[in-house]
């Protein structure tokens, strides 16, 4: 027996094949289209799934506490603090550690990376140590930091600094290559010095890569924060999450994760704003 209806393309064929675009769009651009509402829907769906799973009692609150209880915990810690320290103090100390390390890494890493891109001498000297330590997990050299610099702020900030430093150096270094040779020649033909070429041509064209490296770097910083606050910390979001996990306070763990994510996301939005202002041609 045959099906009398004409057979349209199957789901797979429709996904795999390109359709002509509507006027005003460009045919074949990979991944074009606005995703804002889809992203909102995705977040809402995940929250709903979380709520559903806990409301139906499918998972014990010890493993996955309900959204309401996490929110309640947040309210409680906001009012009463956690381990005798106010919530804002936890947030501020962690933010200060990460952004202190970030500012330091930018202040040293950006000039060093640019210099490595510009000068074979500097590249030859600094490439081996940076490439040596870059792939090592911060947790592996945390003990060394503690042996060398003690258990105070120095070793914590230094550990975060190191995790941010490498991506920033690498970004700045490879950004140097973004300038077209014609742009550089044009500047020299107006009598520019090497410094002027650096300042007016190489730095601005490296900007997109530098900003991306800064975004990646600060992400590494938050990743390393928890490791840095593992030892001898009495304050901080990483400390809060770690000590809560030792007492199986899962809702505090999840809350801490959300707080870190929110701060990191806010910073990322700021960086994207900066990127639009500084490199509109992208």
């Amino acid at each position, binding site marked *: 027996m045959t099906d009398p209806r004409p057979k349209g393309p199957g789901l797979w064929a429709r996904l795999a094949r390109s359709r002509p675009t509507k006027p005003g769009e460009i045919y074949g651009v990979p991944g074009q289209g606005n995703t804002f509402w889809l992203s909102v829907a995705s977040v809402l769906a995940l929250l709903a799934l979380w709520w559903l799973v806990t409301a139906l009692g499918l998972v014990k609150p010890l493993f996955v506490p309900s959204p309401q209880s996490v929110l309640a915990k947040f309210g409680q810690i906001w009012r009463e603090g956690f381990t005798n320290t106010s919530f804002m103090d936890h947030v501020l100390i962690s933010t200060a550690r990460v952004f202190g390390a970030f500012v330091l890494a930018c202040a040293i890493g950006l000039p060093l990376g640019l210099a490595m891109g510009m000068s074979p001498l500097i590249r030859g000297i600094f490439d081996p140590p940076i490439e040596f330590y870059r792939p090592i997990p911060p947790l592996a050299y945390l003990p060394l930091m503690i042996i060398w610099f003690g258990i105070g702020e120095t070793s914590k900030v230094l550990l975060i600094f190191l995790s941010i430093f490498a991506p920033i150096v690498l970004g700045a270094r490879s950004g140097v290559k973004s300038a077209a040779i*014609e742009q550089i020649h044009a500047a020299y*033909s107006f009598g520019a010095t090497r410094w002027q070429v650096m300042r007016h*041509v190489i730095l601005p064209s490296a900007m997109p890569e530098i900003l991306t490296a800064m975004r990646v770097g600060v992400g590494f910083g938050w990743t390393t924060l928890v490791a840095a606050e593992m030892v001898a910390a009495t304050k901080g979001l990483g400390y809060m999450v770690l000590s809560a996990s030792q007492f199986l306070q899962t809702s505090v763990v999840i809350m801490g994760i959300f707080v870190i994510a929110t701060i990191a996301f806010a910073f990322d939005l700021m960086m994207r704003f900066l990127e639009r202002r500084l490199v509109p041609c992208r």
Partner: protein
Amino acid sequence: MSLKIDHVSVIYPAADGRPPVAALSDINLDIQEGEFVVALGASGCGKSTLLNLIAGFLSPTSGGLTLDGRMVTGPGADRAVVFQKHALLPWLNVIDNVAFGLQIQGVPKQARNRTANEFIGLLGLDGFQRSPVYKLSGGMQQRVGIARALTCDPKILLMDEPLGALDALTREKAQELILKIWGETRKSVFFITHSVEEALFMGTKLIVMSPRPGRITHVFDLPFSRQFQSGTPARQVKASHEFIALREEVLNIIFADEEAVE
């Protein structure tokens, strides 16, 4: 203004197991005030090497270049370069791009914008001062590049296939515009092109170059750009018997070179 190229040779060192390459061999060329010298030749004939020498990006293996009696030892604002593409700074708008050379030389903002505006007007870019350059068409971008080169009042303009990336119609308009500006500013020009017609139409002097080793094989004095400047329309100049005859002669030379390579 007088640029003298005196017995200049450039030999690129051996690389990748290939023997050294004589990019330029015993080049002699004088460019005088107000001359429009066009270099034409098969690929690999050393046109761009010659331009890089004049710009000061490259030093000759032997021989020397002098500009008004002074040795050329490096790039300088007295020799402005117009590139084929990718030479504008996309993070700056039109006026800042045009004023870039003056900014490098430390001219204060107000003064450099005044000069830049003058050349923006000359190149027909008025009204686009604040536009970002990456949104302009190819032809307009090239005009920005020419305006930028002119702002520093160079003694000679070096143009490295400036119209090579433009479509045919825009290209012919740009040729006429460059001749108009050359007529108004009386700059000397050294102009590289792949187009025989463009070369004949624009230059007052044509040098035809041949590869292996790169050398000047023929020099022609050209009347056509002056005909255009004294009022003959471009199409009529390019359709004249004289123009066509010379075009065929030059094409024969260049095709002979291309075949010799293969």
